[in-house]
């Protein structure tokens, strides 16, 4: 189990839990990042900027540093790093 921002781009994972600041964690869940959801890290902005993750139905940009801890289980690496 690891935090989603530690994964390299192109990794698929299953969300285990979302924790952090109440309102933020809830907003992330409302956007569909709920436990059990399969998602992929699409790309990471340079210099510790936000990361883009994709679920089956939406694409979401998140700044990982902000009191939002998304724990995930790595499924597999697609090997396809989004350019």
């Amino acid at each position, binding site marked *: 189990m690891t935090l989603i921002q530690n994964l390299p781009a192109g990794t698929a994972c299953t969300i285990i839990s979302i924790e952090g600041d109440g309102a933020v964690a809830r907003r992330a869940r409302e956007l569909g990042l709920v436990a059990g959801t399969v998602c992929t890290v699409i790309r990471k902005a340079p210099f510790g900027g936000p990361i883009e993750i994709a679920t089956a139905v939406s694409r979401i940009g998140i*700044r990982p540093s902000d009191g939002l801890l998304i724990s995930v289980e790595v499924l597999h690496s697609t090997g396809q790093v989004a350019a």
Partner: protein
Amino acid sequence: MKSQRTVAVVGTPNVGKSTLFNELTGLQQHVGNFPGVTVEPLIGTVTFDRESVELIDLPGIYGLEPSSEDEQLSCDVLQGTHRSIAKPDAVLLVMNARNPEKCLVLYSQIAALGLPMIVVVTMVDSVKAAGGAFDDIGLFHLLGVDVHAVVGTKGLGVGDVKHALVHGSWKLPNIVIDTDATIEQRFEWAHSVISKVVVRGSEDTRSAMIDRVLLHPVWGTIAFLVVMAVFFQSIFTWAEPIMGLIDSGVRLLQSAVASNVSSPILRSFLMKGLIGGVGSVIVFLPQILILNVLVTLLEECGYLARAAFLVDRAMGLFGLQGRSFIPLLGSFACAIPGIMSARIIPSYRDRMATIMATPLMTCSARLPVYTLLIGAVIPASTLFGFISLQAAVMASLYVLGALSGLVIALVLKRTMFRGGVIPFLIEFPPYRLPSWKSVGITMIGRTKDFLKTAGTVILVFSIGLWILTELPRADVSHASTRVNAERIQIEQSFAADLGRTIQPLFAPLGFDWRITLGVLSSYAARETFISAMGQIYATDVSESDMPLRNVLQKEFPLNVGLSVLAFYVYALQCVSTMAIMKRETGSWKWPAFSFVITFVLAYSASYIVFRLF
């Protein structure tokens, strides 16, 4: 007592709610005027078969637990706890066929409110085009309320929705889940519904492909800079001819007054107080409109969310988030549309910090003042043999303003607007072509809004300024020329008395009473400084700044010129900006606060510069 039924239009962000609202109400809409409401919802009227229904367009929500000012409004109205907006009689829930999970999760919460409902599903055509299917009758059976499919961007199915709003059978939605269910359980229910009524077509690979370029660390950054350059450039270049037209229209009116009104005092009032004063604000309307069109287009096509993603890291250095970028950029044209576009920032604190930074972005009204003063006091020499010293000073004034604004935002985020940070979390909508009709309707609404807010304040203010500069009437019978007469008038006006009275306040900055008067008159609009200087120094026709520049060159030592420039970088000298700021923040407290901090900064900067050089 209510005369008509009020229906709240509700949906998650990016479902095409605004487009649908614009299609339904057309130009029959206005910004709701509710006392003490910062975020003012749009109110529209739908007329069908000579009967009408009032629609209230509530900001997009994901659920009934708000995390921003906008969302708070929606939740309060829907729950009937808002203090000035009455609980609606029914709900029109907008769903997106391509992305129905979040919409259904929202449904599961709204259904419990016990309001009659109809559901409108957008983008069914897009699901079908991707080879999928959407069973609206199946959804009707599951939810228990009427379901209508529309293609918002093409207006298909909108007539049916209008019919349903007026004549339709409003049913209470089925309560599908316990009120205390978790979001996870609600998603589970949503998935079960979707598996019954939606066949997903092929994936939207187009957006992913476009993102490979537009979000690429290198190509994406280049594309972003190009978009911004075009954005910035077009505000100026497209607006220029229209501004010229408005300007000549104003002159035409003034000369019509000049030749038809014989009473000198009435003529002066009409020309300078009324037409000139209001004209000086209307002239910025093209820039305001173009900026608003561009922001709306970028938002509708889906790029704005990506741009916010790209600049989020950089904005984070100043305690702001990616979305703050658009208002700040727009403020380089004019702070008014900049402040208006700050509505796209969901977090109240981020929005306020951004709004407080906007007056420091160098707006186009400062440009003529900078041009005049730089031309007058900075020698036309070159640095390192190729950089024009004047251009370098001009550029540094822009940078100084922008950096100072960002630092103000940072300080405010660390102090007044501390805590309760909503981290950057943004959904990327699929790329799509914007609806021109919807953009047009939004534009017309914004224009009316601006003219109403800024227009009334400016009218009062320009009449006040006219009284100050044109009264008491001086005896100009011995004046040799018209310009000379104007100089005599202004030197004997209340404004000159005022300038001389408060000049000691500005003496430490090196301002004499003439500059003080010029600075004071700038509080109507900054570029007024030029005509005020032109009148005061009465060299030649005030329009041609060549001779005026030369006069100022003799009159202003370098330190005085730089001191005035520093003052203009910081000071919030724009009544329209303050009026819009009041409107967008809901209280005069914020424009007053901004006025004070920018004045303190302007005064300190001028003082330092005056002493330094």
